[in-house]
């Protein structure tokens, strides 16, 4: 009796979406525990927490944000390649609104002397954030329109914005890397309230997404569309609107990530902000166990997936792997993860556990 009960709970655990991401995270942290002394050390300065673990959370916040939006998109059976470019667009919009002097919008002479002043901004902060998020949301809406109403393959439709997006971002800033001096804006990415402020932003966006998908029927609709959009249509779900919503939300998340990224480096760098982040985000979702074909999803598992990616990066930096060479290691990790998730390997695992049970 006890045997069967324990095997039942074991299966319940292993079949949970959170099982594999947590195992992966645990393995990486175990590696850190053995090979990197003081990886887990936490220090407090002025009541704020610092340390490698906090770094993992802080540097992972952009990918976590993107991962939340990407989870919904992938759950509908699509993918959004443009999030990195949308981040760059968002960062450019925010920078231009705060510091427009560079693109020829001449400030009145009485304001020119304030341009390096950490308390000066051309537009108020709330307007900067609002407009930036609206622009990013429109980018998401554009993707959604192409995919849902234009019936273009998701990868192709979002590829267009991926190609053009960085060009648009450079157009907005006139190709200049605009520095941001405004201190309150820098707080978004650099501020600390015991924990890094960006984590609270992630928590807020996560809460919105969670309420949206788990406290309303939208989550169910998204899964249903991802599993079979045609039968969803016939059972009365407006699959187009659901897809549109997913892409729009993904654009919104990318906008938030763009704000965090640009305030973190206090610059709008249209070339490099969010470069290859779309890949990180997709990978975070895949590690989180959401199938690329769509269907069931878990937002929290994607967050853990993002942390897995960031933990790998931080630990590799800690043992001194150069930044560029890190990509090769990431590639190998991706291969291992997709092997772990592939049906063949899963089938093998199931057979082994089944044999044990028998």
């Amino acid at each position, binding site marked *: 009796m006890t045997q069967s009960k324990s095997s039942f709970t074991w299966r319940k655990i292993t079949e949970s979406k959170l099982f594999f991401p947590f195992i992966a995270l645990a393995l990486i942290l175990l590696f850190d525990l053995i090979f990197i002394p003081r990886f887990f050390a936490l220090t407090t300065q002025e009541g704020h927490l610092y340390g490698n673990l906090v770094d993992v959370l802080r540097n992972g916040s952009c990918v976590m944000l993107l991962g939340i939006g990407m989870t919904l998109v992938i759950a509908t059976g699509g*993918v959004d390649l443009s999030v990195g470019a949308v981040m760059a667009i968002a960062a450019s919009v925010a920078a231009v609104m705060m510091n427009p002097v560079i693109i020829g919008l001449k400030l009145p002479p009485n304001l020119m002397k304030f341009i390096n002043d950490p308390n000066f901004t051309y537009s108020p902060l709330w307007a900067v954030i609002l407009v930036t998020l609206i622009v990013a949301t429109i980018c998401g809406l554009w993707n959604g329109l*192409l995919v849902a*109403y*234009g*019936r*273009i*393959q998701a*990868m*192709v*439709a979002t*590829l*267009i*914005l*991926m*190609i*053009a*997006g*960085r*060009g*648009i971002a*450079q*157009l907005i800033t*006139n*190709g200049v890397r605009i520095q941001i001096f405004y201190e309150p804006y820098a707080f978004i990415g650099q501020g600390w309230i015991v924990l890094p402020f960006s984590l609270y932003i992630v928590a807020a966006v996560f809460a919105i997404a969670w309420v949206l998908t788990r406290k309303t029927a939208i989550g169910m609709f998204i899964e249903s569309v991802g599993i079979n959009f045609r039968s969803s249509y016939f059972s009365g779900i407006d699959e187009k609107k659901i897809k549109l919503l997913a892409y729009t939300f993904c654009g919104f998340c990318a906008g938030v990530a763009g704000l965090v990224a640009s305030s973190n480096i206090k610059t709008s760098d*249209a070339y490099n902000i969010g470069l290859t982040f779309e*890949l990180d985000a*997709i*990978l975070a979702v*895949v590690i989180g166990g959401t199938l*690329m074909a769509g269907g069931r999803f878990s937002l929290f598992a994607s967050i853990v997936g993002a942390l897995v990616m960031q933990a790998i990066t931080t630990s590799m930096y800690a043992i001194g792997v*150069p930044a*560029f*060479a*890190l*990509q*090769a*290691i*990431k*590639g*190998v990790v*991706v*291969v291992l993860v*997709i*092997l772990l998730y*592939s*049906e*063949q390997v899963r089938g093998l695992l199931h057979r082994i556990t089944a044999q044990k049970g028998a």
Partner: protein
Amino acid sequence: MQKIGALISNNRRFIPLSATVALFFIAYAFGAISYEGMRDPQVFLNLFRSSHYLLISAIGMTFVMLTGGIDLSVSGVVALTTVASAALLREGWNPWAVMLLMLGMGMALGATMGAFITYLKVQPFIATLAGMWFARGMCFFISDDAIAINDRVYRILGMTKILVPGLADPVTKKGDFISILVIVALAVLAVAIYIAHFTRFGRTVYAIGGNEQSARLMGLPVNRTKMLVYTLNGFCSALAGIMLSIYVLSGHGLYAQIFELDVIASVVMGGTMLSGGAGYVFGTLFGVLVNTLIQTLIQFDGRFSSWWIRIVIGALTLMFIGVQSLLAARKTRQLASRKMTSQAKGAIAPAPLAALRNRQMLLLGGGAIIVIVLAVLAINGAQNAARGSVTNISTPTSAACQLKPFRQDQAASLMKAGAILAYERNGGSSCIDELYSVYPDGRIVGDDGTKKIEKQVTPADVDKLLSDINDKGWFTDEMYDTWHTPCGQCYGYYLTVSYKGQAKTVKAVDGGTDAPANYWQVVSTINGVIPHFAP
């Protein structure tokens, strides 16, 4: 009229292809009318000379896309090939062995990714993404820095000029030319067309893209073909990498950044459906040419910043995807109506019609966006021109700026008067014409036609300058005239150097053509020494 309609509807599958071809020729004609420099046949040949590796990679990608897959790893494999071959050549390997090894490596990488996709049912997107990261990361395990290639075979392959019959004089060996790499690329194109349309393998590729399930049921070797397609693309990526390393004579892990986007955009513009099953390898050639032509046009105009290239290519990709999806919708409707007439019952199928409407809306929207983009381009250009004329009234506008002829006689007389270096720089956005002469005693004199400027350096500095220039291979065959009619705002250079009894003059132009890399090093060395006129 009806006949034309029937002709179009019977040959609908050629519409994307002919649209690309037409677009290319219209854009080229536009360029030739607007910019005098573009009428030079060499500029047309340069479209091939600067895009051969893109073409090779796009051919491989066409096959992958025809099966309905995608390969993001091309940029990584290209970069890895350049670095690995440069590193091996530095170790003194035989160049031909290096090339073979690289091709083998590319095929092995491609086959590995193919195996993941085919047998482990991993999404092509994810598997090739991992491949890209792996390849690009490996570059930096080999070397952090760019490695120069000094191999003789690579130099010969990269620098041999093949004169084009009819456009060049075979006796004086002057005129318009292409490179060996262009011939290789075109040969690969011919082979690819043969494979795609005249072999069993090619037909299987199309069948898989049309419907993988039915291809399998028909008993076609689906798995083997998919493996082969990804292996073929790995081969093409490696070949593209080899050609890039021959072209730029160096290898670096940061080469070919976001190259995969260019490749995919070229293939899409060439009329290949991203969903697979439809398209022509021949179209890819024009996709690549359109891509390169846009860059050339934006360079020639000189008023637009480089980021417009990305935006225009994005807009064009959107347009072609719009055309494709409209055609697909038509086909669905036709099938539906055919089905209905054969069954002779049922109401009008609402879904395909709605889809068609959506697609038409989409196409209109896409068209509108392209119009907007072009309008913004025009306004932006006009503004820039206006801004230029406001800020600097004394300089003529770019349209009025014709490159002045070189003051060759003056340069010669300066050399006779004891100068050891005469350097003339013409053109540019502010239409300058400056002639500098350097004397052995360290005196440097600049002359912009109206006033003179002088600078005194030590004789040792002059010696160092000359020996630098000599070290860069000034007196070897690697420095040759690359002069042709320049574009509107390009600089022209006329440089005479005399050193240890040797004297040599080279004419070149930037922007429209590409002089050997050493040449620009020489120019920038000189620019670092000479005095500068106040703007």
